[in-house]
């Protein structure tokens, strides 16, 4: 059960990572990257590292995404 959950999360992680690399819309890429961080956070928690999970949720899913969004707002949304 626990391993199946891990494998599911890891597969989702790979899927989101590929989606970020392929996305031409940078806004979409930033949001998918946020969900990548959220899955990573679940994985940390599941592997017994709650402190890293906390940092991942706050920094990875939260602050980094906001900084990406601000950057996109000040530059351009499309990859050239």
């Amino acid at each position: 059960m626990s391993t199946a959950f891990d494998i599911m999360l890891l597969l989702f992680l790979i899927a989101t990572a590929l989606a970020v690399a392929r996305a031409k819309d940078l806004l979409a890429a930033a949001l998918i990257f946020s969900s990548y961080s959220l899955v990573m956070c679940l994985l940390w928690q599941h592997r017994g590292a709650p402190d890293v999970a906390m940092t991942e949720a706050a920094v990875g899913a939260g602050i980094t995404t906001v900084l990406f969004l601000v950057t996109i707002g000040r530059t351009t949304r499309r990859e050239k």
Partner: protein
Amino acid sequence: MKKALVAALLVLTAIPLLIGVASMPPHGDPDAPMHTHVSARYIEQGEEEAGAANIVTAVILNYRGLDTAGEVTVIFTALAAALAVLIGFPAPPKDNDGVPAAPAPLSPVVSFVVRLLAPFIVLFSVYVILNGHVTPGGGFQGGAILGGLFIALTIVLGEGRTRVLLPRRGAPWMQGAALLAFVAVGILGTALTGYFLGYPAESQHLVTELMMLVIEVGIGLGGAAIFATIFLQMEEE
């Protein structure tokens, strides 16, 4: 041709990496090198020696305190580098492909939820910072939560209302709080034990805990201030 070359290079890089992963000891193996070196001592004597029930905190602030001080320096340097790039470069003119020139009106749901949760998030971050020596967490985690909340509040309430939390005169002290706390505790440790960042003997647990608390609060405040500063500087027109 170029694509084939890239693919070949990727495969060539992946093979040694996968060989490296395959030769790692299995997860949870008690005979793995990382479990036979110093970690046994950390687990058995960490609480008495380092004065922190949370072994992670004991390692970060006590056994490997100097490493953490270096880490904090790296974060502070990163802030300095980010500001060096951001300050003095005016916002480039926006080319309106898809991005609206005027900011979209804020959703009332987002605004309400952030206002409602803000006091609880502050409470949680303070708990994470102060309770770091017992439960998972500590200065870095609590500081990140506090910084995230500051950014959310700035988006919802506007910069004018949150700027008071990071006054221009006090900001440099807050951004360097982690480093300053480490230096202060380090010098105090020198005075008490003769070693930089040395903690007093096991009989004086209260002093050790207070010294760790100062570092945790410093890291928390400093981390939050650094996140807030980078966000405010990026937002500034």
